[in-house]
C-alpha cells in the first residue's frame, strides 16, 4: 500500500505508486514522476476518442455503483449549448472507506490530471471538486496543488498552450454523508440543503444549475491518466476474474487485521490473499468471523463466503454482497455482530436527510430496536419487525440511504441470527450502549 509499509508483492501499485512520497504534491514533482503526459495526450484527441478509449478500458465507477465510466461520459450532449460541468466526488463518507483521502493527500495532481482529461472528454470547462469538510489537511494539500497547477498553466485559460480552458473549484462539504450522493452533492454545490433530487432528470441532462453534469469518484478519475498513457488494452488486461471488471481497485482494509491500510490489487484478486497475505491475517489467537467488503452499505459476508471470493464486481455479487466502495471492514471472533449492526444503523439514522418518510423514521426506529435488543429488553417479535421494516425501507425512496441501512440488518439477521437470539433469550449479557 505504499506507506508506511512497502507494497506487497501481490499488489499492483498504479494509483498508489507514490503514496508516502510528498514530492508528488507539486507540479514539478508530478511531472518528474511521469505525470501530466496523459493530459497532454488527451488535449490532442477529440472528445469521442477519449471517451472510446476509456470505454474500451472497462473502467467502472469506483465510488460504489460501478457504472461504466466511458458510458457515463457518453451521456453528455455532443453539442455544448449550456455549460457542461464535471463534479469530482471527494466526499468519501462511506464507513470503512479511506482510499480517496490517500489519493488526494499524496498525489493531488493525479486527481487533477484525471479531472482535466475527463473535463475535456465531456466538453466541460469547469470542475467542482467536492471534498468532505472533515478533510482539512487534504483540502490544504489539494488547494495548494490547484494553485500550483494554475501557476504552471496546467489549469486556467490556456492549458498546456492548447487554448483550452479548464478551471477547478474546490468546494468543501460541511459534514453530511448524504452529500456524497450525486444529486445531493449538486444541490450542496448550488448552496442549497444537501437533499437528493428525484431522477429523472438525470445529471447528464440537467445537473448543476440545470446544465449537463457528470459526477465521478476520485479513484475513478485518478485511473484516467494511466489509461491515456498506457492504453486501454493495458488497463483491460489487468483482470484476474470477470472480464467485466478490469483495472485495479484500492481496498481500504480496516478492522481486526495485522496490517490495516489501503491495498491496490488487480480486479479479481482472491479476498483470502488480501486478508491473510497482504494484511497479515488476523490478530494472534483470533479467527475471522465476518467481512463487510465494500463499505457499510453492502451485506455482511460470512467466513464461508469470503473463502473463495474473487474481489471484483461480479465475484462479490456471486457471494451475496457487493464490491461497493471497497471499504473492507474485517471482523474477528471477538466482534459482537449485533452491536456492529446497531452502530451502523445509528450512523444511517444520523445521516438521513429527512426527505423520505421510510428513511427518516425507519432508520431511527431500526436503531432503537437494535439498542433495545442489546440492552437486554428486546422482544421476540423484534427480529421479524426489523425484517419487515427493512422491506418497507428498500426500493421505495429517492436515494438508497434507506436501502443501505436495511442491507446490513437483513444480512446480519439472516447470517448471524444466533447472536440476535442470544440477546433475546437472555443467554448473552446486555451491553452498555454508548449514547
Amino acid at each position: 500500500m505504499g506507506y508506511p509499509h512497502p507494497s506487497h508483492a501481490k499488489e499492483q501499485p498504479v494509483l498508489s505508486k507514490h503514496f508516502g512520497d510528498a514530492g508528488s504534491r507539486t507540479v514539478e514533482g508530478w511531472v518528474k514522476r511521469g505525470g501530466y503526459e496523459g493530459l497532454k495526450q488527451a488535449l490532442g484527441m477529440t472528445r469521442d476518442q477519449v471517451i472510446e478509449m476509456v470505454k474500451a478500458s472497462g473502467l467502472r465507477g469506483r465510488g460504489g455503483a460501478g457504472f461504466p465510466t466511458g458510458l457515463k461520459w457518453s451521456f453528455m450532449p455532443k453539442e455544448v449549448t449550456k455549460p457542461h460541468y464535471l463534479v469530482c466526488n471527494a466526499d468519501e463518507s462511506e464507513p470503512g472507506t479511506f482510499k480517496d483521502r490517500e489519493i488526494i493527500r499524496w498525489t493531488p495532481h493525479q486527481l487533477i490530471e484525471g479531472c482535466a482529461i475527463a473535463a475535456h472528454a465531456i466538453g466541460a470547462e469547469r470542475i467542482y471538486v467536492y471534498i468532505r469538510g472533515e478533510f482539512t489537511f487534504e483540502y490544504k494539500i489539494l488547494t495548494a496543488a490547484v494553485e500550483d497547477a494554475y501557476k504552471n498553466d496546467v489549469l486556467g485559460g490556456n492549458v498546456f498552450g492548447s487554448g483550452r480552458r479548464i478551471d477547478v473549484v474546490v468546494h468543501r462539504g460541511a459534514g453530511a454523508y448524504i452529500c456524497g450522493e450525486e444529486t445531493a452533492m449538486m444541490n450542496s454545490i448550488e448552496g442549497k440543503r444537501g437533499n437528493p433530487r428525484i431522477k429523472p432528470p438525470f445529471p447528464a441532462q440537467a445537473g448543476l444549475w440545470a446544465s449537463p453534469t457528470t459526477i465521478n469518484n476520485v479513484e475513478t478519475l485518478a485511473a484516467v491518466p494511466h489509461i491515456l498513457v498506457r492504453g486501454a488494452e493495458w488497463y483491460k488486461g489487468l483482470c484476474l476474474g470477470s472480464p467485466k471488471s478490469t483495472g485495479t481497485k484500492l481496498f481500504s482494509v480496516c478492522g481486526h487485521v495485522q496490517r490495516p491500510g489501503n491495498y491496490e490489487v488487480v480486479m479479481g484478486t482472491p479476498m483470502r490473499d488480501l486478508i491473510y497475505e497482504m494484511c497479515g491475517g488476523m490478530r494472534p489467537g483470533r479467527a475471522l468471523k465476518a467481512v463487510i467488503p465494500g463499505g457499510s452499505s453492502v451485506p455482511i459476508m460470512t467466513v464461508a463466503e469470503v473463502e473463495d471470493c474473487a474481489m471484483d464486481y461480479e465475484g462479490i455479487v456471486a457471494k451475496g454482497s457487493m464490491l461497493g466502495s471497497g471499504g473492507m471492514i474485517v471482523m474477528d471472533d471477538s466482534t459482537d455482530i449485533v452491536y456492529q449492526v446497531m452502530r451502523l444503523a445509528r450512523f444511517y439514522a444520523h445521516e438521513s436527510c429527512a426527505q423520505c418518510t421510510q428513511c427518516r423514521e425507519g432508520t431511527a426506529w431500526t436503531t432503537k430496536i437494535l439498542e433495545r435488543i442489546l440492552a437486554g429488553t428486546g422482544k421476540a417479535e423484534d427480529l421479524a419487525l426489523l425484517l419487515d421494516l427493512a422491506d418497507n425501507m428498500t426500493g421505495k425512496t429517492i436515494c438508497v440511504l434507506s436501502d443501505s441501512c436495511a442491507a446490513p440488518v437483513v444480512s446480519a439477521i439472516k447470517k448471524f441470527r444466533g447472536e440476535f437470539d442470544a440477546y433475546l433469550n437472555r443467554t448473552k449479557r446486555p451491553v452498555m450502549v454508548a449514547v
Partner: protein
Amino acid sequence: MTKDLVNVTIDGMTVAVPKGTPIIEAAKQAGILVPHYCYHPSLPSPAVCRMCLVEVEKAPKLVPACVTTVVEGQVVHTDSEQARRARTGVLEFLLINHPLDCPICDQAGECELQDYVFQEGRSGTRYSDYAKRYNPVEDFGPDVLYVANRCILCTRCVRFMEDVAGTPVLNVSERGDRAYIGIDEDQLLDHPWAGNVVDLCPVGSLISKDFLHKARAWDLDKTASVCTGCSQGCNITVDTRDNTVVRLRPRPNLEVNRHFMCDTGRMHYRWMNRGDRIEAPLVQDSGRLVATDWDRALDRLAGLVEKGGDAVLLASGAASLESLGMMHRLLAGTRLTAVVQLPIGESEEPLQGIPNLALRQERAPNGEGARLLGYGTDWRAAVKTASSADLVVLLDVTLTDAEAALVSGAAAVVVLGTVQAQELASAALVLPLTNVVEENGTFVNRDQRVQRYKQARTAPGMSRPAWWVAAGVAPTKVAPTLALAPTPATAAQAFELVCSTIPSLAGLTYADLGLLGRIASGMAPGLAPTHALAQSGPGGS
C-alpha cells in the same frame, strides 16, 4: 387546440390525458384518488412523502405517481397488494413519532393523516415503549403556530413560501427524525398570503391562532361563497358553527385563486357575526323611527319612489349584482344618479407564483357588477348631489360624518343597511338587509367573472336581501315599462332578470354559473386569466 394525448389504464379504467401529465392527475380523471401528502397541484412536486407509490406494470420498482409522467399504454395499479403495503408502511412510519394529539388537535376531522390511517393504516402500533421525538411549539408569526411534534415533513409549507409566495422564510432544519420546519432568524410569517400554509398542512402542525380551539371540524357547516375583500373574487368556503361564522377558507378555483386566499380576506369575517343589527323595517313617524312590518315599509318606499324627481342611489361595492340591479330598476322612473362606493386599499399584494392573483387595491367584490349596470364611481360628486336631491337611497353603505351631514340635506333618505348607525335617526325609512352570508347572490370580479355565493346562515330578525326589497315594490307603481317583467321571487330569478339588461350577461342563469363562476361573454380576450402552472413537466401540476 390539439394536444398530444396519452392513453393510460389506471385500476382498469383507461383515460386519455395530455402528454406530461403525472399519474396522480391522470388518476383523478379516472375518478381515483391516489393517497398523498407532499404533492399539491399548485406547488412544485418533490416526491418526498412516498405515499403515492403505485405499481406500474413492467416497472422494476413502485413509482411515485406525483412525478412520474404517463406513458402511452401504461398500466397502473394504485391499489395492488404491493402498493397498499407500501402505503401502510409509510403510515406506520409517520405515526411512530406523531403524537396522539387528536383529542386536542384542531385538525381532527379534517386531517389527512387520520383519513388515510383510518382507510389503510395498521390498527395497532408496533412502536412500543419508545419515546417519540420532541420539538417545542413555535409561534411563527401573526396567525400561524407550528406544532413541531405533529409535523410529517411534507414540506408543502416550505415550498409554498419559497415558490409561490416568493419569500423563502421557512426551511427544513436538522436531519433524520430530528428534522423540523424552521423559520429564518428574526423573520415572521407575515407575508400577506402566509395563512395558506395552514390550509396546505395536511395535519395539525401548522395551525391558525385565530381558529385555535374554536370548533371541531365536524361541527361546522360549510358553504360555498366568494370573498368580499377585494375585486379578485377568491372563491371561499364559509365555515359556520351554530349559525356563527368561525372561519373562512379558500375554495379551489383554478381560474381565479387556485387554492389560496390572502390573509386580509381570510381574517375579515367577524363583522358577519355582528349583533347590532337593524332588526325590523323602521318608518319615520312623528319624529321617531318606529318598527313596522314589511308590507307597510314597502308601501312607504313605493310612495317615496313614485314621487320621482332627482334621486341619488349610493350603493356599496359589496352589494350583489341582484341587489344593485333591482335597486337600479326600482329607481328607473326618477332622474337617477347611481354611484358605487369602492374603497381603495393601500397597495396591491400579489401572490407572485400564481398568475393574475393578488389582493387588489379595489377593496370591493362587485365593482365590475356595478359598472356593468351603469353605476358611476365618482362618490364625492354623488354625495354632493345628494345633499339637494329629492330622494337618496343608501344601499348598505357606511358614511363618514361629513358625508352623512351632506346626505341629510336631501328631501327624503331611505337607508337599506345591516347595522344600526347614527345617521339613521333622520331617515324616512330604514330597511334591514341581509349580509353576504345570509343571502344568495353573485358578484362580478375584475376579470368579468360572475360568481355565485350561497347563504351560509339564517338571516337575523326581519332582514331581507335588497333585491327582494326592490322587487317588493310593485312595478306598476314606479315605472310602466317595468310592468312587463315578472317579479322575481328568488335570487335566481332576480339574477336572470338583472342579466337580461346587461349585454355581456344576457341569458345567464345560476345553472350556467355553477359554483366556479363564468366569464361574461363579449369581453376582450386579453382579460381572461390563464393558469400557467399547467403542463410544466414533472415538477408542475
